[in-house]
């Protein structure tokens, strides 16, 4: 084996490794490095402060609020998205023009840019002139403040996320449903199983790998929510919709406290990292019904 033959495989993967290192690995380590400095982006000197940024972070009541918001947002978004998508999937898992049309319709938000979606929903949710308040008014309900009051602002953002996410999640569920052999249902039918029991004992357990996969990716993406917040609420009112990524953006690029923002970034990294780890760990055993 010549030297060239030994080196060739490395040469082949080198471009990928290089891109990956420059754009993914390096920024992560640089962020961790920065999280231990006090720096304002412009000044030539960075002051080493050790773990002080983290101490400040966890002493900041705003940050605690941000963590809580992120958690609530995540729980609501994930459970609603998964639950509604599953219902849609069970309903839409059949052939026919109508079902195909509904599938396409609920999938379309997935391919629209988040910026457009945010603008559209800001308008829909306008307390005075919005379509939503007009609609609920028809049913005799009182107008809701939607994005403009802390009591409804976070749930309003959850609604937008769920609306956008359902199409994709439904599609994945339908794919999962279609991989279940039909004769199992026929056997259950002959066994006089009622529809709900068939769902609970057969369909749902057989979908559990899919459910699990979707729960994790939805959790990860909901921790990363940014566009809707930046456009619709800027974290307000009174910090009620401020979540991790928006907080990082605020401190990094508006207040130019890069070290402090990096520390918050490290916290996000840890959370997402743990979720990913959990996913691979559990994926390799247990959850599968096989």
């Amino acid at each position: 084996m010549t030297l060239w033959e030994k080196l060739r495989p490395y040469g082949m993967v080198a471009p990928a490794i290089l891109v990956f290192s420059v754009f993914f690995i390096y920024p992560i380590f640089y962020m961790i490095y920065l999280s231990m400095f006090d720096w304002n982006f412009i000044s030539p000197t960075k002051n080493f402060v050790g773990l002080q940024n983290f101490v400040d972070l966890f002493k900041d009541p705003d940050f605690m609020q941000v963590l809580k918001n992120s958690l609530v947002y995540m729980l609501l978004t994930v459970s609603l998205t998964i639950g509604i998508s599953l219902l849609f999937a069970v309903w839409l898992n059949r052939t026919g023009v109508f079902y195909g049309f509904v599938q396409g319709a609920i999938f379309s938000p997935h391919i629209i840019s988040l910026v457009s979606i945010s603008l559209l929903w800001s308008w829909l949710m306008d307390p005075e002139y919005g379509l939503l308040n007009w609609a609920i008014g028809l049913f005799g309900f009182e107008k809701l403040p939607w994005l403009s009051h802390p009591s409804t602002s976070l749930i309003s953002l959850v609604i937008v996320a769920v609306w956008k996410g359902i199409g994709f999640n439904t599609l994945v569920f339908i794919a999962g449903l279609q991989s279940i052999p039909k004769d199992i249902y026929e056997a259950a039918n002959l066994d006089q199983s009622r529809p709900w029991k068939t769902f609970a004992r057969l369909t749902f357990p057989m979908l559990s790998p899919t459910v699990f996969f979707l729960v994790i990716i939805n959790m990860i993406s909901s921790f990363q929510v940014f566009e809707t917040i930046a456009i619709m609420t800027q974290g307000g009112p009174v910090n009620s919709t401020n979540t991790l990524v928006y907080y990082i953006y605020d401190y990094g690029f508006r207040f130019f406290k890069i070290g402090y923002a990096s520390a918050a970034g490290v916290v996000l990294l840890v959370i997402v990292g743990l979720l990913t780890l959990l996913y691979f760990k559990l994926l390799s055993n247990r959850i599968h019904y096989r």
Partner: protein
Amino acid sequence: MMAKIELKNIGKKFKDEEVIKNLNLTIEDGSFTVLVGPSGCGKSTTLRMIAGLDKQTSGDILIGGRSVNHIAPGLRDVAMVFQNYALYPTMTVRENIEFGLKNRKVPKQERDTLIHDISEIVGLTSYLNKKPQMLSGGQRQRVALARAMVKQPKVFILDEPLSNLDAKLRNQMRTELIQLHRRLGTTFVYVTHDQVEAMSMGDVIVVMNQGVIQQAASPAKLYGDPENLFTAQFIGTPAMNILNFSEVQGLHIPAAERIGYLGFRPEHVLMKQDLHREGFTLDGEIVTRESLGAETIYQIKSKAGVFFVKTFLEPMEMNSQIKVTIPYEQLYYFAPDGQRIRGIEAREKSLSFVGGK
């Protein structure tokens, strides 16, 4: 508990494709009836209509004298064993067997006894707590059987239940199924596309082709007295030899113009000249010889066409040119449309020689 199944003028269409055409069949109570036919001929569809999984487009289905047209599958007192078993992968073997009982609200005590007894019968006792995925093909097969048996149905429906098993296990399960049928005494409707399986298991065999019943009769009658070309060629290995009657020489027959085809079974051909047997003789050349141990199968080329000969416990014929005889009473005649023509007697050879070669 009568469980005679009657299918009356059954038709089935999928979209515009007519899969079953005006099918009439009575399956006697307690019989072991086998539906057999080539792939796609509508066997599964027929079974599924009896079970209620597919709805017939026209006609009536009666079980035990009662119309089941509007009765849901679970309430027809029919249990089905599926080709791919269709076991519930999310449940253990015990839960698989128990599921139907629980849904019918059978009390726990009774369930336990039933499961105990049935797992004894099919030999599953030590696997009750395993998931089906952990079992071998034969074991899964038994679970599927147990799941059907435990419901004590009036009718058992089995759709190619042995097709996924290897040859040896298949033979063993075949015997077990026959015994099971004797023991339970319920009506079995069994589908296969393997004619050997059909012949060895059924009391009554229903031969189907393209959605039409060709013949329904006992195995012996199907073999000895086929109604038409299709049945004649479907039953037996190798199949019945069929010669185009217009190419056959040396056979003088009254009303020969009605006849389209001449048939005879490979095992009825005499290779050795036997002056005492009167019969139709053919000259030919042996093209291949195939020895299967006790049997030898020859392929012979004659002026009238290629045909097969099967001999049993005879030394291999080494000559390549050969003259074979088929006793007159072993000849079958078919009309050009394939229908059997009965009651024809071939005359003495000497007479037929008049216009011969």
